[in-house]
């Protein structure tokens, strides 16, 4: 969880955080070592102190202990305590060899004649003194040696609260110092890292800012010198220019394809206009020649009228096609009828038959922009008529699924070449060649968020375009 969160963080924040975390770890380890050393030092100091205490008492008390002179033992202990020589010693108990207490600095706590065993349970040996963090008092048991033999025992309780307090203060200052140092260094690291990583941030911003295209980094924002980051940014700029150039090339190619399809459309229109023109001229000639024959004139006039109406319809469809390029009209069945009219001359010139099936709901169709869909369908139809042989067959099917509109164009041509198929389906730039308008279709469908399928089956090629066309639930219409 934290790992993912860290990975999502910007590098400029993650790196200083990592440095700060390392500082904390180093601080903790260093603090632990300091405390360990302090504890060892305190234990050594205590050992030395107790050793001196015991040695001094052994010299002073030896004869008295041998004689079991209670008063002398007490007097020596009491004077040593009163003289301030053993302020840390909160209790000193002297026992004979049998473990009977002779005297103690506090006789009420350790009465004369009682057993020293009650105090021995928690006592530590002199050479193995350990100070734990929670102890304010430790007890040490040492033999009382006089003239080379053990004549009794000395049990000493030491007040180590000051040592415990010293350790607590050390911990406090270590934590405080480490926290302050870590904070300062982390802050400094943050700004230093941020400064160092600024070109990387710039790079990330430029990469993400352009819509579909990387944006060039201006020279003013380039780091000085021939640093790794500088080389990286220059390489990025080179790549960004290459991407731009490629996009421009594709745009030009698409433009050219549009011009090509426009030329073919114009040719088709000219043919459409030219076809009736012969009949119209014949009719006008007939009218001139048989002006006195009203029936012929009427018949010829009807011919002229039909021909002119056809020309009007053709010009209206062409006008609509161009006008839609700049309007936001929605796709509708009459757009398909216009396309059918526009494609007819091409079909007739090649004696091809057209199968036309439109089963989609107009409301569903209206979810899509008319200009884009007309461009897509026209290019698919033009491509199919170009691919289909003389006398061949072309079919259009417009249907719908739950949330998509599907447009399929089928022909019985030789099928798409690899180049044409790549042009239709691959986003990569392709060499100019077969499959006029297919690049335009791919770009437009991609723009609508749709997909293109292409299959070849039993001598027929089907290009199926599916574009999202969900009708909003509230309005049932777009």
């Amino acid at each position: 969880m934290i790992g993912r969160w860290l990975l999502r963080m910007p590098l400029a924040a993650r790196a200083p955080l990592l440095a700060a975390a390392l500082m904390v770890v180093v601080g903790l380890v260093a603090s632990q070592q300091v405390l360990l050393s302090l504890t060892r030092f305190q234990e050594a100091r205590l050992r030395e102190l107790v050793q001196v205490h015991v040695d001094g008492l052994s010299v002073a008390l030896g004869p008295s202990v041998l004689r079991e002179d209670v008063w002398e033992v007490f007097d020596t202990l009491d004077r040593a305590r009163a003289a301030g020589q053993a302020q840390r010693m909160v209790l000193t108990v002297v026992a004979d060899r049998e473990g009977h207490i002779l005297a103690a600095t506090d006789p009420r706590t350790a009465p004369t004649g009682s057993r020293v065993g009650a105090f021995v349970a928690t006592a530590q040996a002199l050479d193995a003194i350990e100070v734990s963090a929670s102890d304010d008092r430790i007890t040490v048991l040492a033999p009382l040696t006089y003239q080379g033999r053990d004549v009794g025992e000395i049990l000493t309780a030491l007040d180590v609260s000051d040592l415990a307090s010293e350790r607590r203060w050390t911990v406090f200052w270590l934590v405080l110092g480490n926290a302050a140092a870590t904070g300062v260094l982390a802050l400094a690291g943050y700004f230093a890292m941020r400064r160092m990583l600024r070109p990387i941030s710039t790079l990330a911003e430029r990469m993400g800012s352009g819509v579909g295209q990387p944006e060039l980094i201006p020279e003013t924002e380039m780091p000085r010198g021939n640093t790794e980051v500088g080389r990286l940014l220059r390489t990025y700029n080179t790549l960004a220019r290459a991407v731009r150039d490629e996009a421009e090339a594709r745009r030009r190619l698409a433009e050219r394809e549009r011009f090509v399809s426009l030329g073919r459309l114009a040719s088709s229109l000219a043919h459409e206009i030219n076809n009736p023109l012969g009949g119209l001229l014949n009719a006008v000639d007939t009218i001139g020649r048989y002006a006195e024959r009203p029936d012929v004139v009427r018949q010829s006039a009807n011919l002229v009228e039909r021909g002119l109406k056809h020309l009007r319809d053709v010009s209206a469809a062409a006008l609509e096609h161009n006008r839609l390029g700049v309007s936001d009209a929605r796709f509708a069945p009459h757009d398909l009828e216009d396309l059918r009219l526009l494609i007819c001359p091409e079909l007739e010139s090649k004696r091809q038959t057209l199968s036309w099936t439109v089963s989609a709901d107009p409301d569903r169709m209206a979810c899509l922009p008319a200009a884009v869909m007309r461009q897509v369908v026209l290019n698919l139809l033009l491509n199919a008529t170009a691919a289909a042989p003389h006398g061949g067959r072309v079919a259009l099917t417009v249907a719908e699924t739950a949330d998509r509109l599907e447009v399929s164009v089928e022909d019985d041509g030789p099928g798409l070449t690899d180049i044409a198929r790549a042009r239709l389906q691959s986003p990569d730039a392709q060499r100019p060649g077969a499959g006029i308008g297919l690049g335009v279709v791919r770009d437009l469908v991609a723009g609508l968020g749709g997909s293109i399928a292409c299959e070849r089956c039993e001598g027929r090629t089907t290009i199926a375009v599916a574009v999202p066309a969900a009708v909003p639930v509230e309005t049932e219409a777009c």
Partner: protein
Amino acid sequence: MVMEKLAGKPRPVSRRRLILTGAAAIAAVAAPSDAANPFRFGLTPVFLDNDALVIDTLRAALAEGLSRPIELVQRRTYEEVTGLLLQGGVDAAWLCGYPFLQHNRALTLMGVPVWRGRPAYRSYLIVARRDVAQGLGDLAGGTHAFSDPDSNSGWLVTVSDIVRTGRRPERFFSRSIFTYGHRNVVRAVASGLTRSGSVDGYVWEVLALREPGLAERTRVVARSEWLGFPPIVARSDRAGDADLARLREVLHRMPETVAGRRALAALHLDAISPGSPDLYGGIAGRMRDLKGLR
């Protein structure tokens, strides 16, 4: 004289005295100066012998009065000081009435301090301040601190009191110790080393004034009758020596000199009277009670 009656003998005479006196005289004549031959004065813990100021003022008063240096000799026990006195190791000593009576034939009174208007003091039986004991009987089976086996107030009084109750002193307490100092008895009881202690009443009272922090940790549960104050004594056979005669005069005239008054004030005493062996009848009576025990 009471002591002579007790002893049943005349005071010891004195060929030895004469010899010693002669030797002293010869020594005095032979001495190049008094500075090389200081007057040796023995001290026992019958007073606060741990107090340097007291010691110094006493030395100063004696030195001024005797016009010669004073060597104050302190030993741990009464017995040692008494021995020194008897052997001539010191010229005079401040002893307890009990050893004075023990050696009454060999010792003579030089003076008896006057405390609170009389040449007498009492023995105190003390316990820790919060102890519930009300008297000697409540202390049976406990631990006890005596001052010295030759001390009247610090041993004889309590032991004779026990004997008077018909019990054996050596079995009365579970454990008894000697601290060789009245102040030490107070320390032993105050610290809890022993439950009770036998102490010189004069020392305890002075201690209450000078070291209230120590004395207040103890409580007096029994006081003896008034008994003869620890006397300053010298060997009987030297009683006629000039330096001892001079010492006697100096002691008796202490209230008349600045140094003497200062010393008396430091000792919380009124004066030093010539005294009389009769003062020690009470102690002698207790000694009799112990006959056969020691």
